[in-house]
């Protein structure tokens, strides 16, 4: 092992393949599905599904030990194409991550194998509730075991469920729902359950109208006596009563899903930021404005400095992302590094895309170009999967060695 920034050939070919999809199947439809909010973007979904399920399939592995790095590189590429469409990718998405992380081999086979064949399908994860916000420990959705039928009965409301509508309205899809089996146990009572498309008692009551990523369906789900088989529980049913400052293995296990998903979200952010930065640089070049990396101090233009700083910030975010991803590939705990990457990428890309709009003047603000859209899309990365502030809090706790009860 040695410090290296040389991507594996598999990573590079995976990136190139995604770039091809981004250019041919995403960019051409970006504006259409920004305007036609929530419509299913079949022009993107169909070829994406064909690639994923076709011969050769999508390469999701860059080679030995580089799997998650490759996923991040590919994610960046797709979100360079269009972050909203990316989130409508026919795939298990975060629901898949949860099943992969916490499911038994049988559960993985049962819920994930349909994604290798047939018609396009989607997975989703439902955590947030109307009154909980960032406070995942305060989940109100309940799961009660009906001993007679050996079924879990779920009740509650979930918001901000990305791809929740797509997941539930296409056969073979599923949503991983977080619910408590024992409110008195606090975090210890929180478990995750797989609810498949077609299950009775779960329904999509609406999709949010959003600032950006409008191609993505952000669903509100209501569960009313929604019954699922016992073995749709991910992990163990046993509740560990946890005092506030330690324990919580179950909850921590569930939260650990974020350690895997945050680098991916960070990579999404980097992709959107790069889209904007690439475009700005190309446009400046077209307009005859050169970015010098060795300009005399008194002659450097404000634009040059802006672009140089944008490049540095983007690369900083990207490297933090890869580092957090690489730790997964190495089997190292990356809770701190994942939150660092997410916090940095969300903020950096918010600023980069906002600056991109400014640098292009009136053109940047116009919907004739996609730059204004990228600014709107980018902002989600500063918010979901833990806001900027939540990730700062996680980083702070780790560097200070404080528990969540000491620093909150």
């Amino acid at each position, binding site marked *: 092992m040695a410090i290296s920034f040389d991507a594996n050939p598999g990573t590079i070919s995976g990136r190139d393949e995604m770039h091809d999809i981004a250019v041919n199947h995403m960019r051409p439809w970006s504006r259409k599905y920004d305007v036609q909010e929530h419509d299913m973007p079949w022009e993107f979904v169909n070829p994406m599904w064909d690639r994923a399920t076709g011969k050769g399939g999508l390469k999701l592995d860059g080679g030995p030990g580089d799997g998650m790095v490759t996923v991040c590189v590919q994610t960046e590429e797709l979100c360079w194409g269009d972050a909203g469409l990316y989130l409508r990718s026919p795939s298990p998405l975060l629901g898949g991550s949860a099943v992969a992380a916490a499911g038994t081999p049988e559960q993985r086979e049962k819920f994930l194998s349909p994604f290798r064949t047939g018609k396009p399908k989607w997975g989703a994860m439902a955590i947030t509730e109307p009154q909980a916000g960032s406070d995942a420990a305060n989940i109100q959705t309940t799961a009660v075991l009906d001993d007679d039928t050996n079924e879990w009965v779920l009740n509650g409301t979930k918001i901000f469920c990305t791809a929740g509508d797509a997941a539930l309205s296409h056969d073979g899809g599923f949503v991983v729902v977080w619910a408590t089996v024992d409110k008195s146990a606090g975090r210890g009572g929180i478990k995750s359950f797989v609810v498949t498309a077609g299950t009775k008692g779960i329904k999509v009551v609406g999709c949010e109208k*959003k600032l950006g990523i409008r191609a993505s369906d952000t669903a509100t789900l209501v569960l009313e006596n929604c019954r699922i088989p016992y073995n749709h529980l991910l992990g163990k049913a046993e509740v560990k009563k946890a005092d506030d400052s330690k324990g919580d293995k179950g909850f921590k296990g569930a939260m650990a899903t974020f350690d895997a998903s945050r680098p991916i979200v960070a990579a999404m952010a980097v992709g959107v930021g790069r889209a904007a930065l690439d475009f700005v640089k190309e446009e400046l070049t077209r307009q005859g404005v050169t970015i010098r990396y060795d300009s005399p101090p008194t002659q450097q233009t404000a634009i040059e400095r802006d672009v140089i700083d944008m490049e540095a910030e983007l690369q900083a975010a990207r490297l933090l992302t890869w580092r957090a991803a690489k730790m997964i590939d190495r089997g190292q705990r990356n809770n701190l590094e994942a939150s660092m990457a997410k916090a940095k990428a969300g903020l950096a890309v918010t600023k980069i895309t906002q600056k991109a709009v400014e*640098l292009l*003047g*009136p053109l940047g*603000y*116009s919907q004739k170009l996609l730059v204004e859209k990228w600014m709107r899309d980018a902002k989600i990365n500063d*918010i*979901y999967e833990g*806001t900027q502030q939540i990730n700062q809090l996680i980083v702070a706790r780790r560097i200070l060695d404080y528990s969540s009860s000491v620093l909150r």
Partner: protein
Amino acid sequence: MIDFQPTDEQQLVIDTVRDFAANEIRPKARECDESKQVPEKVITLAHELGLVANALPESAGGGGERSAVTGVLVAEELAVGDLGIALAILSPGLCAYPIAEFGTEEQKKGLAHYAGPRFAPGSLAWVEPRFDSDPFRPQTTARRDGNEYVLDGAKCFVPWLEGTDTVLVVAAQDGVPQAFLVSRTAAGLGAEPERNMGVLALPTAELTLSGVRVPASARLGGDAGADLRRVLNQGRVALAAMAVGVARAAFETARDYAKERQVFGVPVATKQAIAFKLADMAIEIDAARLLAWEAAWKLDRGEDTTREALLAKRQSQRVALEVADGAVQVFGGHGYIRDYLPEMHLRNARGFTCFEALALV
């Protein structure tokens, strides 16, 4: 004497406009943003307040009380309600103010139109649709040809409300910016409705001018011309105040939400990370406002205000963006959805860096 207290009359205006913004404008803000339409009824009601007419000469039926300071006070309060609607309400001033200040006697006859009982929208075409649009050096040109001027070029962000009949077009004549009164129906004038990221309640157009001919008398100020730099500065000061208004709207929305929203069993406003962010917003908003006031005060003294207007606009547009972005963060997930206002404030705030002369004081 150095003082920061509006006159009693100004305070009355502030209170009136603040109420109007809260009760009439704000409730329409989201709907107008989504439907991309200006609320006719609100505009009519606002017109009855006489905010623009008061500043027009008495000879034209106005109040004769033009004051840039009063202008920024009004502009901020209106923008707290909604930026797009505020710009629509103030649009008559886009033609009327420059005519009142620089127009020939003949041109001033048109002022009554804007001071009258019916709302008459104005329009000013300054910004140009290129990445390096330079308000001091328009690329749109005006060439004298006999008893006419011939205008060529393109403009964007041109307010284009229903009922607009005349647009004041800024063009370089021998390298010096001048303004020309152009009829909406002039031959060679094309107007395409625009779609931008924000300020959606205000209809704007991208204009193309291909050999548009206007009589020599259409040049603002006639032979004397007009001090377009001063008009630009009046625009920058107005926009500075409106950026402060947008920032204030975002701040107040975020503050109220933070006090209400419970997370981990307490209002999020009790968390230092949120509370300090709100404190910074409040400080920056007040600071930006004072810069706008100072620039306005200097405008009222008739002095060159290029530097102060630039400082005020730069500062307030930065503050508006940061505050709106911060408000989105305070709202968390709700900040990203269009059921709440912060995302709209963010889209609106981002526009100021490329806005010029969308309103005047």
